[in-house]
């Protein structure tokens, strides 16, 4: 099965173990590998560990620590006063609710699209395959503007949908729509290589042994790809929770209805209330972290069961 666009990470194996043995230790017939007992397959563990920890510390942990410290400077009373107002709670509910729905929709749609791209040969497949990544490159504010222009009552889609009662702009639905747009590539790209790597012989065997098509899918195919689908869900969720640019253009930002939490952050920054602004961000981060931990645990169980 050709997979020109497979995004699975390919580890470029460093040739250095073949060159690395210290001089003078003699290359025996057994080859260099024998000398390096219990050595890992990939070379340079120390190097990569040092680089990894530096990158993780400086790019992820430090900024987050500063964020938490700033918010903590208010003390517990001040933190709750700033981060747990009725309006903020409503905004968390909008952010989390829309992100969960969007991530679920992206996972389902992503599975279908990934299946088609991986399994079915049709004209324009490569073009479609390339198009999948476009939402990642497009500035999301542009997506928000285009979506809202499409779904307003005079818009191309809105003029048909709004009379039917479907409001895709300045509504909760609008938020979900753009969040699906920005998160769908993750859901597709995680599942696609897994489908491509499925052993089709097993499916054929199942069919020959009398399983129905549905049974084959549910019992043979799905257990293999479900962990990837859940990973796609987690990535989509994380992407959706952090999204700001596109949402502010389509949500209408009505307090208690369609206002997402990041808008509150911006509002507090306008008052030059930095610490108060960070409390909202910290709350959002904590909720995302909790959700991601749950999803990851689920994913690990699924992976375990699949084996």
């Amino acid at each position, binding site marked *: 099965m050709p997979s020109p666009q497979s995004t699975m990470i390919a580890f470029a194996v460093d040739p250095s173990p073949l060159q690395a043995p210290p001089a003078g230790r003699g290359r025996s017939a057994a080859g260099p590998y024998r000398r*390096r007992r219990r*050595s890992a397959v990939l*070379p*340079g*563990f*120390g*190097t*990569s*560990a*040092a*680089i990894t920890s*530096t990158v993780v510390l*400086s790019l992820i942990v430090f900024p987050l620590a500063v964020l938490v410290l700033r918010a903590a400077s208010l003390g517990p009373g001040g933190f709750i006063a*700033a981060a747990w*107002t*009725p*309006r903020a709670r409503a905004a968390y509910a909008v952010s989390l609710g829309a992100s969960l729905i969007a991530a679920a929709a992206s996972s389902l749609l992503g599975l279908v699209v990934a299946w088609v791209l991986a399994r079915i040969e049709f004209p324009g497949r490569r073009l479609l395959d390339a198009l999948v990544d476009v939402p990642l490159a497009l500035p999301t504010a542009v997506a928000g*503007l285009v979506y*809202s*222009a499409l779904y*307003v*009552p*005079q*818009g191309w889609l809105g003029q048909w949908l709004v009379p039917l009662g479907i409001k895709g*702009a*300045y509504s909760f639905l609008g938020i979900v729509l753009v969040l699906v747009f920005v998160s769908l590539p993750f859901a597709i790209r995680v599942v696609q290589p897994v489908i491509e790597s499925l052993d089709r012989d097993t499916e054929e065997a199942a069919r020959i042994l009398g399983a129905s098509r549905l049974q084959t899918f549910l019992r043979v195919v799905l257990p293999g790809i479900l962990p990837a689908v859940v990973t796609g869900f987690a990535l989509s969720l994380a992407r959706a929770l952090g999204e700001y640019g596109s949402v*502010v*253009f389509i949500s*209408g*930002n*009505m*307090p*208690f209805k369609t206002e997402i939490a990041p*808008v509150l952050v*911006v*509002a*507090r*920054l*306008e*008052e*030059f*209330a930095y610490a*108060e602004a960070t409390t909202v961000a910290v709350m959002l981060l904590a909720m995302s972290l909790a959700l991601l931990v749950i999803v990851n645990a689920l994913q690990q169980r699924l992976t375990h069961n699949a084996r």
Partner: protein
Amino acid sequence: MNRPWTAVGLVVCLGVIAVAGGCGRSTADPTTRVDALGAVELLNVSYDPTRELYRDINQTFVRHYAEEHGRAVEIKQSHAASGSQARAVIDGLEADVVTLAVWPDVEAVAKAGLLSSDWEKRFDNQSVPYHSVVVFVVRKGNPKGIKDWPDLVKDDVSIITPNPKTSGNGKYSFLAAWGSVLATGGEEEDARAFVTEIYRRTPVLDTGARAATATFSQKGIGDVHLTFENEAHLEVDESGGELEIVYPSRSIRVDPPVAVVDTTVDKKGTRHAAEAYLGFLYSPEGRAIVAKHHYRPWGESPPMPAPGEVWPEIVTFDISLVGGWQAATPRFFGEGGVFDSIYQPNGG
């Protein structure tokens, strides 16, 4: 056996950090800004709608300064939402001058110690070289018959204005509506009821002025858009005859202040050019350019926007009607302020 590699990794990482740190320092080095030819480089940190205005001002000022002082100036512009520009300067963006939308933003820069506290007295008219007013933009033929403030809350009129918590344009529109009640003899309670009704009719609260303009003009939402006179002209010109400006009988005067950032110009040695640059906004030549962009220049007999055009008469009140920015900002737009109370589910 892995130790040499660990060492290599550490060296690489330290190198990266050193280089990154070095880069950071070199851009912050003030002396690099004045190049070998002696050209002075100024950075004007401004807000969104002034992009076109300052492009024009810069061209003329550069010529003017070279003629008068025999020195080349190069001016860079930076535009974004006024509040975030103020924060950028506070956080270390080396602006020589700030030309922001609202007084609180410049005051915040002063409070951070980058301007002297008497910055308002450095230039004429409390450092406000030009004004604007909040006006209405309506659809062609004014189908809802909107002429003045009370017309905004009749029938099913729907209103577009950005979120006053995140937008200077939104703050002014809010205060214009509030002040229109006080200035015609209304009480505070009447003003509160009036703005509550206005925001009840606002279906979208965009976070910035330009987004609100797009919502009204391109997406066709709302019957009237509250915005600055200069923005209204841009919006109407671009609409190709689909929109019109309506001047209410009275409105708030918009005062965007300017200031030289003392810490930057003293470090870079650019004070002379920076002061001349802002002073140029008050000169006859500068005022003519300001007027051309539909900002009302300060002072006696202001130049007209274009030959044959006149500034429409409008009675203005200013921020002092609501006690000045210092009191008005937390009261109206702070957390739990008047604007927030409008949206309390069972309040205001």
